[in-house]
């Protein structure tokens, strides 16, 4: 069985309150040198059968229509090695 990972991140121009809150907290915790933090979602999908082009195309469609809200989010599909 193969694992496909779908990363979903807010588009760069969209406000990311969570990432901002994390970033603002870092210096207080003693972690300097991080100039920006964005927080997104990671989906790990266990795929039955071969992860061929057809399967990847289906997963991409799934990401586009369901896992991500493309009004505000971008996504990225990767096969886990």
């Amino acid at each position, binding site marked *: 069985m193969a694992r496909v990972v779908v990363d979903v991140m807010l588009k760069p121009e*969209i*406000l990311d309150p969570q990432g901002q809150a994390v970033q603002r907290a870092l210096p207080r915790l003693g972690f300097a040198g991080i100039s920006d933090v964005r927080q997104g979602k990671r989906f790990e999908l266990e795929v039955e059968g071969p992860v061929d082009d057809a399967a990847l195309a289906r997963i991409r469609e799934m990401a586009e229509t369901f896992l991500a809200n493309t*009004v505000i989010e971008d996504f990225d599909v990767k096969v886990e090695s």
Partner: protein
Amino acid sequence: MSLDTVKHAAGTPESAQPWKELGLKEDEYARIREILGRRPTGAELAMYSVMWSEHCSYKSSKVHLKQFGEKAPQTDALLVGIGENAGVVDVGQGYAVTFKIESHNHPSYIEPYQGAATGVGGIVRDILAMGARPVAVMDPLRFGAADHPDTKRVLPGVVAGVGGYGNCLGLPNIGGEVVFDPCYQGNPLVNALCVGVMKHEDIHLAQASGTGNKVILYGARTGGDGIGGVSVLASETFDSTGPSRRPAVQVGDPFQEKLLIECTLEIFREQLVAGIQDLGGAGLSCATSELASAGSGGMRVELDTVPLRDATLSPEEILMSESQERMCAIVEPGKVDRFLEICEKWDVIATVIGEVTEGSRLEIFWHGEQIVDVPPRSVAHEGPTYHRPYARPDWQDTLQADDAGRLARPANAEELRAQVLALVGSPNQASKSWVTDQYDRFVQGNTVLAQPEDSGVVRIDADTNLGVALATDGNGRYAKLDPYTGAQLALAEAYRNVAATGAKPLAVSDCLNFGSPEDPAVMWQFAEATRGLADGCLALGTPVTGGNVSLYNQTGDQAIHPTPVVAVLGVIDDVNRRTPMAFSEQGQLILLLGDTREEFGGSAWSQVVHDHLGGLPPAVDLEREKLLAEILISGSRDGMIDAAHDLSDGGLIQAVTESCLRGGNGARLVVPDGLDAFTFLFSESAGRAIVAVPRSEELRFTDMCGARGLPVSRIGVIDGDAVEVQGEFAIPLAELGAAHEATIPGLLV
């Protein structure tokens, strides 16, 4: 791209400008040139276009809205009327209450969660800007058909957004509506109400006065999201999002807003502001022009000092950005340091971006170069006014002639019983707890009544027990049949709901949701509804204190039902005497107040059983509504009634079912003389309520009704664990409860 300065604009009169893409009409663009005596700069064009949009300028609606002022009833209760961020009402003991309802319909269709969330955020800032601590929210919602697949997308997202934002702010949600109708497919209505409390002396206004006073922008950084949101809000189509590649969707940050609230209240407490305005639609364009327009002088703003989230934003985009969670304050120079200190305490970014000037112009600079030089009134208050043509549509007569009284009625007791179960389990009549259980109704520790009660009641003074009550109502089906009467029915129902909990109705806010104003039929509906509401408010003595208009709620040439949503605010001097809706004592008598007639036009019964909409809505008698309210309030004050529930859609059986289920007790009902069981159970005649009265109080209560001329009949007794209509049928509470509770969760799995 080179900067389009005022000087440059004056020297290049022929430059082509994207006024059309920004939603301006040719004559509007010509008028801007006339006002300025030259072509506008890009920044000025951006400002005018957003401020003169339907959403900000009310250009189609204002000729009709005028009536709310012209016909305003005489009342001492109104401290601040229409025109400010929200109206303010005197509720006694030195307290003032401000409340307002607003729409976020189109954004919630595009992105349900964020659309609804930022809708709540926006109305809360309006209330905060008046000087008040927000104390509760409500959310009247309308969706397409309950079983439509898109409803499964929109409804859970909207509910999660309303809850996600409101819960995180710590504002109890004390009521609202959930209505389904195919007419809202593609045009869901997400209205949001906020109510706030302050002392009289704390009222703040949006005005920039005092030469030399500083303009401080505080809250979130300005980003590229929401640019073009204004055009989306009010434009004909969703794809005309302005010239920008920026997304029209705004993302809310309720945590930032919570900090903004606490920070602002602390600033108010130390009396550090001379004027204040929230940033909502049209962002800085709106805040600067409105503050300057309402003030005595001019204003100068250094736009490049605005803290940005995205350094690539152009000055036009900064002016139009609708980034959430921002406020703008006018502060005397000597108080600026303390102001900034409080902001720092709350981790809120605050920046002096300009000052109030001697002159009369709004001047905006970008790195030292002037990009805006306008008379602020021309932007904020002197936008175009349309007298749009309107005409009663020719189908209205046919619709009204299609009388619901001719529909087949249940033939026997068995059918009657089945229709009762179908009604109380229909999506519109079913329990909304799947929705409301996602809202925090307890936070702040002052909630006396919340959903599913007739109105939400919050205590505003823990020592004196002073409280306020709020209800919102609207019935698009009634309004479709007759918009004038439909608006009055919405008003009457909200008024009755407030009185049913024992509070005295004082004032009104409204959200008018309609189709395209460019359709004369829709414009007629709008004209009729506003006329009905203004006349109704005059008759009931409850002024309209403010509200919101949402137009273009339509898909193609298919408009939504005209949907005026009306919120009524009431006051209760001692929340200990609030009247709940639950039938909680067996043996108490159930009395029906008011007259029941054969009125089924637009009724829930006609919808559920026959999928029919036709005829006339129930008749309105506002004098009767006043009398009923007086009786309900007296009953509460003198301790004569233990429960009350207003009658509205679904009629008597719906109300009895809700009161029985809430109290966990059954009822035995007897059909009064002169009525048939069907009419008794399903008629939607207005001006009615049921009350539960201890036997010892019956005579005193019915005598009071008799003396004042309110019809009252004893229709039954709280008893057993079934709802029984004598001689007809009995339905165990468990069966009624299952039908009532299962529907909404069943639709959304």
